[in-house]
């Protein structure tokens, strides 16, 4: 039985790695400028300057890397939160952290800070996310006990407040600033700053590594807090750390790429159905699958009505959402 399971896991991991390579290939080889494949191989093999080199290394590759980082981060955060809350509806944007980031970014746009440096936007987003984490934590941690129920409720409410605030900003802002805020809310992987892409990639890999130490705690928490406590899990400490880790994951992704919906909700669900509930495999599988999913969606967004580009959130929403509904209804039909 044990043997069988690990064989299955290894199979899924290899499959996901193969899919990741496929996604990377499609992201590098397909694009609106239609460079021939042979030329792309040449450029990838040795850099030779010129326009093709610039397009592959300067535009497509950074976008691919950011796609993996953001997709991985969001679905990793989704897995952790769904496991911790034992609630399949929780996703990275539920807890109001993204709302905080959005308010931060909108304020920085409204105050005209982005004219000073474009870096103020991700910075403001991250600060917004961080202050929201502190607020949520302060509201819900009493006597060193973090109330998950309270966290969920206040998080949802704060998200509502944040979206109303953004609508207020939109109503008050000048038309140029309006564009800036809307762009940011739509989310995009077209990040100009290489440093930010490295941060996003580094953070996602680092947190994947760190959360892996929590896999058995997460498995225990899935049984319920009390049961986990009986199994010897330091429940409060684990909850606290996981809350902070996911918040930082979401904060960084939202600050760099804006709001890209559905990845953090749908991918963990799918992975749970496919590889099972054990967090030993689930964490890595979700990370990989999230990256693959977002990179595929971005390739579609770039090419489906080229040269016009769609916001990637349009594709993740439509594709992810309908795929999910289809799987759910099919399964129910099977049961009946």
């Amino acid at each position, binding site marked *: 039985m044990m043997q069988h399971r690990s064989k299955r896991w290894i199979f899924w991991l290899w499959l996901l790695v193969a899919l990741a390579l496929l996604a990377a290939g499609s992201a590098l080889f397909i*694009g*609106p*400028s*239609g*460079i021939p494949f042979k030329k792309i191989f040449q450029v990838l093999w040795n850099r030779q300057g010129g*326009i093709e080199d*610039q*397009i592959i290394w*300067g*535009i*497509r590759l950074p976008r691919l890397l950011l796609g993996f980082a953001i997709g991985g981060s969001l679905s990793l955060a989704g897995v952790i939160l769904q496991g911790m809350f034992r609630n399949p509806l929780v996703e990275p944007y539920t807890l109001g952290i993204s709302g905080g980031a959005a308010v931060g970014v909108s304020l920085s746009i409204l105050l005209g800070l*982005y004219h000073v440096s*474009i870096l103020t*936007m991700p910075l403001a987003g991250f600060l917004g996310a961080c202050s929201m984490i502190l607020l949520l934590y302060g509201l819900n941690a009493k006597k060193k006990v973090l109330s998950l129920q309270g966290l969920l409720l206040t998080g949802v409410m704060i998200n509502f407040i944040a979206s109303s605030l953004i609508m207020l900003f939109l*109503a*008050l802002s000048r*038309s*140029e600033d309006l*564009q*800036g805020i*809307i*762009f940011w809310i739509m989310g*995009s992987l*077209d*990040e*100009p*700053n290489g440093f930010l892409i490295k941060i996003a990639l580094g953070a996602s890999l680092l947190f994947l590594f760190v959360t892996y130490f929590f896999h058995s705690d997460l498995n225990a928490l899935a049984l319920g807090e009390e049961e986990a406590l009986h199994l010897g899990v330091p429940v409060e400490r684990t909850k606290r750390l996981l809350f902070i880790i996911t918040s930082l994951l979401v904060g960084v992704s939202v600050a760099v790429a804006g709001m890209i919906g559905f990845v953090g909700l749908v991918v963990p669900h799918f992975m749970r159905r496919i590889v099972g509930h054990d967090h030993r495999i689930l964490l890595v599988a979700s990370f990989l699958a999230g990256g693959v999913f977002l990179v595929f969606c971005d390739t579609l967004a*770039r090419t489906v009505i*080229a*040269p*016009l*580009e*769609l*916001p990637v959130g349009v594709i993740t929403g439509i594709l992810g959402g309908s795929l999910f509904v289809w799987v759910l209804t099919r399964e129910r039909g099977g049961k009946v």
Partner: protein
Amino acid sequence: MKLRAWLIFCAVILACSFAWAAEKGVIPERIVSLSPVITEELFLLGAGDRVVGRTHYCTKPREAQKIEEVGNVLEVSVEKIVALRPDLVLAGSMTSPKAKEKLKRLGLRVEEFPSASDFNGICDSFFKLGRIIGKEKEAETMVKIARSKVDALRSQVRDGNRPAVFLQVGVDPLVTMTHGSFLNDLIEFSGGVNVARDAGSRIYSREKVIADDPDIIIISGMGSDGEKANEKEKKIWQGYRNLKAVKNSTIYVVDSDLYCAPTPLTFVNALENIIRLLHPHDAA
């Protein structure tokens, strides 16, 4: 010794001439325009043949429609732009900040044109465009012509009556233009008074319009709102029977392309148009 001095002299001359050439700038030959107004202005200045990329909405003049598209106004494909090998990218106020930054980082020359806040701004930005693409003289002449025409039109209406005008540029929500927009200039130059001049926000309330009771309502829905929406909006206003504009039937639907895409020359046309609406008896 003499030879050395001569060499140094040559070097200095050479350096100076290079500096001068750099200062003057190379005239761009492959231009990507990311704003409909700028595309129109490029053609006005006779540089249409140098435009290699445009947005989906750059449809004026007709020749522009043959040029390759690189995106709509909001979302542009950075890759597509780079692939066109431009030596100049002209960004408008609606161009995504990230795309602008990315293009700059890839070593392209990006010139930004914030939206003009008044007639002077329109002229300045037109002049700036002329300077960048090496059509300084043409731009200067056209601006001069536009300015003198505007002055002439303004003096025509100087002593006329001053009707209160509500200019509606968005149908749902009700958007108007306040102080700090070239459309405000348009109303004031034509001898009208913009009832929303000092409103804090461009989103206006219907109730406020009814309280203002303007003499004239001009509807110019932008872009996708379309002609139908504007006519429907006119019907809605006509439902308020007590409005002066309804009693005198002075609610007009105008061509939004004419009003909302401000090159110096279209501004003149728009001004002529609005003067006809505001002072029908003078024109006749």
